[in-house]
């Protein structure tokens, strides 16, 4: 349909014509209201030949309509800016937390590793004395040797914990590549099956065949999925099932790992991603695995959640953005 010309319709009708009024006063509104041209069209459709009074009334009505539309758009914009502000605030808080953890970990690593180093040397010296001097003939030598070996073992355990703590703090910036998540899962499950099959744990996969390629860091994602699968194996222990599923959902790839294990009590669930929190027996877990997983997934722009039925099952669900490349913020004009 041909667009009516405002100036032409406001031509020779004596007094102040509706089209002229609207057309001549639209420019400031157009700046904030891109709908203004269509409002002008509406105004220009006012029957020609109306008196100045009617024209003015129509113009006021149109202006009111424009105001409503503009206010609505302004509200939307304010809401959108507010959301962006919240997002940036969250990112700043998270970055500060990570930076604090990083500094804290470096300090802890130094403070703990130095006394550990002394303990390790002392244990090695005891071992040396017990095996290379007359002490080896003492009746309790074997018991002393056993104690020294235990000290070395526990020192190594502490060393591992500090190492994992540093991994949590030092999580490297992801290096993004487009990957086939289903293929990655196939590879990892093949690895975990070696552990699962002898314990009669069946691993099934429900992978969406046309899952889009995901722009993410493959080794980091592999680390997370492997960790979840190993946890699932430990939860099931023997004779059970683990299922890995993928699904494309609103620009996100959803990856879930569920198991038919012992489940997690509801009061423990909120703490499950907290560093140093572990449900495993003393000495069997550092309580850092899931905290590291959450750190990795959040750094890749996704999130991880858990749901569980005690005594029945647990499901860990990861949502990863399919394309996490930085996008330009909408321009402000």
């Amino acid at each position, binding site marked *: 349909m041909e667009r009516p010309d405002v100036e032409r319709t406001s031509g020779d009708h004596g007094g102040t014509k509706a089209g002229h009024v609207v057309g001549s006063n639209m420019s400031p509104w157009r700046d904030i209201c891109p709908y203004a041209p269509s409002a002008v069209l509406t105004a220009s459709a006012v029957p020609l030949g109306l008196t100045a009074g009617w024209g003015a009334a129509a113009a006021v009505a149109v202006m009111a309509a424009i105001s409503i539309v503009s206010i609505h758009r302004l509200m939307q914009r304010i809401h959108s800016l507010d959301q962006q502000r919240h997002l940036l605030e969250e990112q700043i808080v998270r970055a500060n937390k990570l930076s604090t953890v990083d500094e804290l970990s*470096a300090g802890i*690593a*130094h*403070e*703990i*590793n*130095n006394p*550990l*180093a*002394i*303990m*390790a*040397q*002392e244990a*090695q*010296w005891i071992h*040396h004395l017990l095996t*290379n001097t007359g002490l080896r003939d003492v009746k309790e030598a074997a018991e002393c040797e056993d104690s020294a070996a235990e000290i070395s073992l526990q*020192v*190594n355990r502490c*060393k591992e914990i500090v190492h994992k703590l*540093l991994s949590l703090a*030092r999580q490297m910036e992801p290096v993004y590549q487009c990957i086939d998540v289903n293929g990655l899962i196939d590879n990892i499950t093949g690895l975990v099956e070696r552990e699962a099959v002898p314990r009669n744990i069946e691993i099934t996969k429900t992978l969406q065949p046309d899952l889009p390629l995901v722009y993410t860091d493959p080794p980091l994602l592999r680390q997370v999925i492997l960790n979840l699968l190993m946890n699932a194996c430990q939860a099931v222990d023997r004779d059970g099932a683990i299922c890995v599923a993928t699904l494309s959902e609103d620009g996100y790839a959803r990856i879930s790992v569920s198991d038919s294990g012992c489940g997690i009590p509801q009061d423990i669930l909120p703490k499950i991603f907290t560093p140093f929190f572990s449900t495993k027996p003393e000495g069997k877990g550092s309580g850092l695995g899931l905290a590291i997983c959450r750190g990795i997934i959040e750094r890749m722009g996704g999130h991880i959640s858990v749901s569980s039925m005690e005594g029945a099952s647990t499901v860990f669900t990861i949502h990863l953005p399919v394309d996490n490349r930085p996008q330009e913020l909408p321009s402000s004009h």
Partner: protein
Amino acid sequence: MSSPAKLLLVDDEQRFRTTTSKLLAARGFSTATAGSGPEALEQMKENAFDVVILDVRMPEMGGVAVLAELKKLDPHVEVIIMTGYASVDTAKEIMKLGAYDFMLKPCAIDDLVEKIEAAYDRKTARKQLK
């Protein structure tokens, strides 16, 4: 069998220095010790060492600064860094300054001896090239 390698162990933890040097002596190494960076530099001016085992975090003067000064005094001395914590940046800096290798604390004496022997072999090979 005693090793001809002359070692200097630099660490601010007195007990670590004592026990490590005893363990090294049991493996045939003669080891001098220093409790700080400036003390290590003083010893380096007075004696020739083949391999220096150097802690990174020390009060007064950090290991990285000590390493740079040690290399000025003797560019051919081999330095093994021992640290309770090394970031990637520190490791890069250490390697740029010419350290032979670095080890994380705590470590097994066997691993340390292996690195000392390798560093000493390199020092000897360099001498033979002259």
